[in-house]
């Protein structure tokens, strides 16, 4: 059951701080948790783990391929390794190591990709993972989770620790917009409904969840009732939720911080077109490269704002009427 905050605003603590403190808490109880870092532990926030557990922390330097396949070996020996780097390196750079030494080898590895999509901000196009979800969705048996805020992250992490199998955790490292109140409980693979609504459903993930809520507010002023779903588990997708939304609202908008090719929008489109064709509009990066800029600038640049989501909702609703 989730509880929504009354004041939806920026949190006062960074995601990486909560990630690391949650991992340390879990590791105090579970001696099998180890970390692999690639010279970005200061950036990804795992430095405190290495101070607390020096024997269980492996910083391999700028050698991601080795670090990722090593994580496969650590898992083969019976441990639960958490591999960290920026999302571009944690996905694209180590794709074959994830595929063979983690996924195909059926190893219990947790891959953390920091700074996904436009949250890479001033690191720019070289460091801006728009495609990570798309390429990783094509890896069999992986679970892809994008925690929305620190409440969700803190709640999910012990569950991820206790779930055997390969995970990709798409983790923004700075301050998220706080959506959930303490006490919220999440289930991996089950979407969270933030708003009820009958005219259209906005299915969002990551930083786009807050934009989706703003869009729903804008639509409400026009007497459009928009349901808002936080699809924090992108794979396996909560198919039942998607189909229920399609049946009950008749129009869907997806919103994601990444390329619409292969990501959340694609995943929803696959479910709808095979089961219940429904007007669908996708908000996301429209197949282009990243660039430097603030989150605000980049949201405008790539059309990831509440205004774009609201506009796409109107379009989806109009298509529903025509049908």
């Amino acid at each position, binding site marked *: 059951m989730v509880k929504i905050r009354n004041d939806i605003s920026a949190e006062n603590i960074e995601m990486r701080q909560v990630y690391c403190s949650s991992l340390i808490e879990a590791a105090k109880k579970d001696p099998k948790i180890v970390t692999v870092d690639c010279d970005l532990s200061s950036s990804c926030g795992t430095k405190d783990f290495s101070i607390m557990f020096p024997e269980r922390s492996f910083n391999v330097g700028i050698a991601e391929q080795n670090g990722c396949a090593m994580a*496969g070996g650590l898992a083969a020996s019976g441990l639960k390794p958490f591999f960290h780097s920026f999302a571009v390196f944690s996905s694209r750079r180590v794709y074959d190591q994830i595929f063979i030494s983690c996924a195909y080898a059926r190893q219990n590895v947790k891959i953390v990709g920091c700074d996904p999509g436009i949250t890479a901000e001033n690191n720019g196009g070289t460091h801006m993972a728009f495609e990570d979800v798309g390429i990783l969705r094509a890896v069999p048996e992986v679970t892809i989770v994008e925690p929305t805020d620190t409440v969700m992250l803190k709640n999910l992490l012990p569950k991820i620790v206790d779930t055997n199998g390969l995970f990709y955790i798409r983790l923004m490292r700075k301050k998220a917009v706080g959506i959930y109140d303490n006490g919220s409980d999440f289930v991996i693979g089950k979407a969270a409904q933030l708003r009820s609504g009958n005219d259209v459903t906005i299915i969002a993930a990551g930083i786009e969840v807050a934009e989706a809520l703003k869009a729903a507010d804008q639509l409400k002023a026009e007497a459009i009732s928009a349901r808002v779903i936080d699809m924090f588990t992108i794979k396996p997708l909560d198919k039942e939720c998607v189909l229920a939304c399609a049946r009950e609202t008749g129009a869907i908008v997806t919103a994601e911080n990444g390329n619409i090719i292969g990501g959340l929008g694609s995943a929803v489109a696959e479910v709808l077109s095979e089961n219940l064709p429904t007007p669908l509009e996708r908000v996301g990066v429209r197949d282009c490269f990243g660039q430097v800029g603030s989150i605000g600038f980049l949201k405008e640049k790539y059309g990831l704002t509440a205004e774009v989501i609201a506009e796409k909702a109107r379009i989806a609703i109009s298509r529903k009427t025509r049908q």
Partner: protein
Amino acid sequence: MGADVMFERMRRLSADIRIWTLRTIGDAGFGHIGGSASIADVLAVLYGEVMQIDPEHPDWEDRDWFVLSKGHAAPALYATLALKGYFPMEWLKTLNKPGTNLPSHADGNLVPGVDMTTGSLGQGISAAVGIAAGNRVQGRNSWVYCILGDGEINEGEVWEACQTANHFQLDHLILFVDWNKKQLDGRLEQVNQPLDIEQKFRSFGLDAQTVVGYDTTSIYYAIKKAQSVKGKPHVIILDTFKGLGVDFAEEVEFNHYLSFDRSKAEAAITEIERRYAEGTYPRGELRW
């Protein structure tokens, strides 16, 4: 047991590994015979005498571990594991047949005794580093053995893994390089100048030796010597020949992957038995 008996047993096991590798690939009709044949001797030393293992309990946590980083030589590993009793010898007839438990590259999920799935070159060594590190975290005293191909060490990841193994002083990790002088497209120096392989590993912080890679006795003593060196990982470069001990493969320049049938395999087995009975090395050189 006297040392002579032990060394004789290793020599016999290496002949048997070659024989069953040939039958396994011969039944499939095609396969990676060149690089499988050249690791038969080191496998005989490891699985025959050196490794602490229990074929009845392949997942025994305190065992010694083995990673075939050159995963395409899996037929030799499968033959070894079957001979050691990890699974029925009949399985060897199914290599690469539909629905088999024995695919062309070493599969840790299908094959009892395969400690890590490999096949994408360069990754097995990283996994072996991870296993060695993981054993240390869990307070085990196990040894981790890993065979690399001499073509495989083209991969940059191999050298990343060596740096990591050195940095974390993983002295229970022993690597082997099957220096059989050829990779798929030709001889090493034609494809990618290998430079001084032993020196390269030494530069990356490993305790390095080079031995006659088809002399089981030399391999055995090299392992014992490596185990006595503390504080750093080890590499033993096996000076071998691609196709070693399989007469028809020895004669073919491009012998990475050959097609042959069971009758050709049996003819080659006759030659293996002849060399074994004569007391010659797999290449046919006199041992004494």
